[in-house]
């Protein structure tokens, strides 16, 4: 059925008599459109006509020795006809329409998107302080004032906007990028080993190379010393820089119980209903809503809203308590999960530019736990900046030849 017919309304008419087809002919002659004419069965047939034409049919049919009876009315005019003189119903309908329109001027639902590092709760609290809260009158919102207020309260945000659609406020935020701290070039540092290994390559950009390829180094050993040297010997302290590549070995172990407690629902369920009006909650149950032990609490919310059109401050909440028992069950793919976890940990340890040269795993079971050990050889940068101590600086100063000695 087309929308046009629904708007103008239509009626289904039952034509009965010796020749109901004659009524169709008469309707055609009088310009009354009709559709969905069913073939006659037992001297009766049905046909659909516009609602405004349905009144004329009984007289027309009578003149042709037939009867016409309206069996169904549909469409908006039919709805009004059905309501008729039920003024209370009409008043309720009008009141509901007015309430829907008025409630559309207030915020009944807020969602925040675009936040990653900043917790959503922090943004919501800042929004509430700036007037964007449940029940707020949104035509009074000032985008600039809200933006400035929220960014002032949450400095980790770079930009934000509030768009309102049908009582739903969508808050879109962009977080500020973390600033890269500049390197303090005036600080004197040594490049030292952060872990043990065999030095593979040393490329000092500044400072004096101490470690040579093939050297075995321990954590804390100086690889590039924080002083410069020239033909005359030590010239002075500097900030030593440069990559130092080394072969390193790792032995990482991860353990986990072979079995885990698994939930099995007993089938016992209990529901609690509540009505949320704006910020007010009306519980239709006695006692508290604290979940007892051995139960899962699942809350379903049914807001009275049409998404993107309107939202009313009315939400029906159903809380289901589902009882469960726990029983031991083997953990599926445990060994693979431990291996993946170890490899992830290794890659994190060697950094993005590190490489895993070779690796192997060993496993053992003891006291109901599975232990997986990763043995790996890697190639990574092991240099770490360590500021020179006062003693280091004094030692360097003592090594600098005096000007007079040099001139002699």
């Amino acid at each position: 059925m087309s929308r046009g017919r629904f708007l103008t309304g239509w009626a289904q008419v039952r034509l009965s008599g010796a020749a109901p087809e004659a009524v169709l002919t008469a309707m055609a002659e009088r310009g009354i459109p009709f559709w969905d004419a069913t073939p006659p069965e037992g001297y009766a047939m049905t046909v659909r006509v516009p609602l405004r034409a349905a009144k004329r049919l009984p007289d027309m049919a009578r003149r042709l020795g037939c009867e016409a009876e309206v069996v169904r009315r549909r469409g908006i005019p039919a709805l009004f006809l059905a309501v008729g003189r039920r003024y209370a119903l009409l008043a309720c309908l009008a009141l509901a329409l007015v309430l829907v329109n008025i409630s559309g001027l207030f915020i009944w639902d807020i969602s925040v998107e675009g936040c990653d590092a900043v917790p959503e709760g922090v943004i919501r609290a800042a929004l509430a302080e700036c007037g964007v809260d449940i029940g707020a009158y949104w035509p009074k919102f000032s985008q600039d004032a809200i933006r400035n207020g929220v960014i002032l309260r949450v400095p980790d945000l770079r930009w934000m906007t509030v768009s309102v659609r049908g009582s739903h406020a969508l808050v879109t935020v962009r977080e500020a990028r973390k600033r890269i701290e500049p390197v303090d070039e005036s600080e004197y540092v040594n490049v030292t080993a952060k872990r043990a290994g065999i030095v593979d390559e040393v490329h000092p950009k500044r400072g004096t190379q101490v470690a040579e390829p093939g050297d075995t180094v321990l954590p804390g050993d100086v690889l590039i010393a924080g002083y410069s040297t020239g033909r005359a010997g030590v010239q002075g302290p500097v900030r030593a820089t440069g990559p130092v590549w080394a072969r390193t070995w790792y032995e990482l172990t991860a353990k986990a119980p072979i079995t885990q407690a698994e939930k099995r629902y007993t089938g016992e369920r209990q529901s609690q209903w509540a009505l949320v009006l704006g910020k007010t909650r009306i519980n239709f149950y006695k006692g508290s809503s604290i979940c007892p032990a051995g139960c899962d609490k699942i809350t379903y919310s049914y807001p009275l809203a049409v998404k993107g059109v309107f939202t009313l401050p009315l939400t029906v909440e159903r809380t289901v308590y589902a009882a469960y028992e726990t029983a031991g069950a083997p953990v599926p793919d445990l060994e693979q999960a431990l291996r993946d976890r170890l490899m992830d940990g290794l890659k994190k340890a060697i950094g993005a530019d590190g490489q895993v040269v070779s690796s192997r795993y060993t496993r053992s079971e003891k006291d109901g736990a599975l232990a997986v050990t990763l043995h790996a050889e890697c190639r990574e940068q092991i240099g770490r900046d360590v500021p020179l101590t006062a003693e280091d600086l004094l030692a360097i100063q003592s090594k600098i030849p005096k000007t007079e000695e040099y001139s002699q």
Partner: protein
Amino acid sequence: MKKTDIIQRIAALADVQPESVANVPRITISGGGRVLVEGHRGLLEYGEDRIAAAGPGYRILIKGEKLALVAMDRRELVVSGRLWAVELE
């Protein structure tokens, strides 16, 4: 001789389509499932397997299966369904 017949003869002599000058029916069959009858003179019979419309001095009989009257006004009627035959009686 009827007035319609005279007009049809004149139209034939003038090499003009008769339905354009006289009120004679024109029947158009589209595929095997739709018939348009222009210039009918009323519905005489309506059933799932046969629909009859009045023409000038004869009946236009449409035979088929699951026939349905899709639309109708004072000049035209459209029938849809599985067509077997269109006969003039």
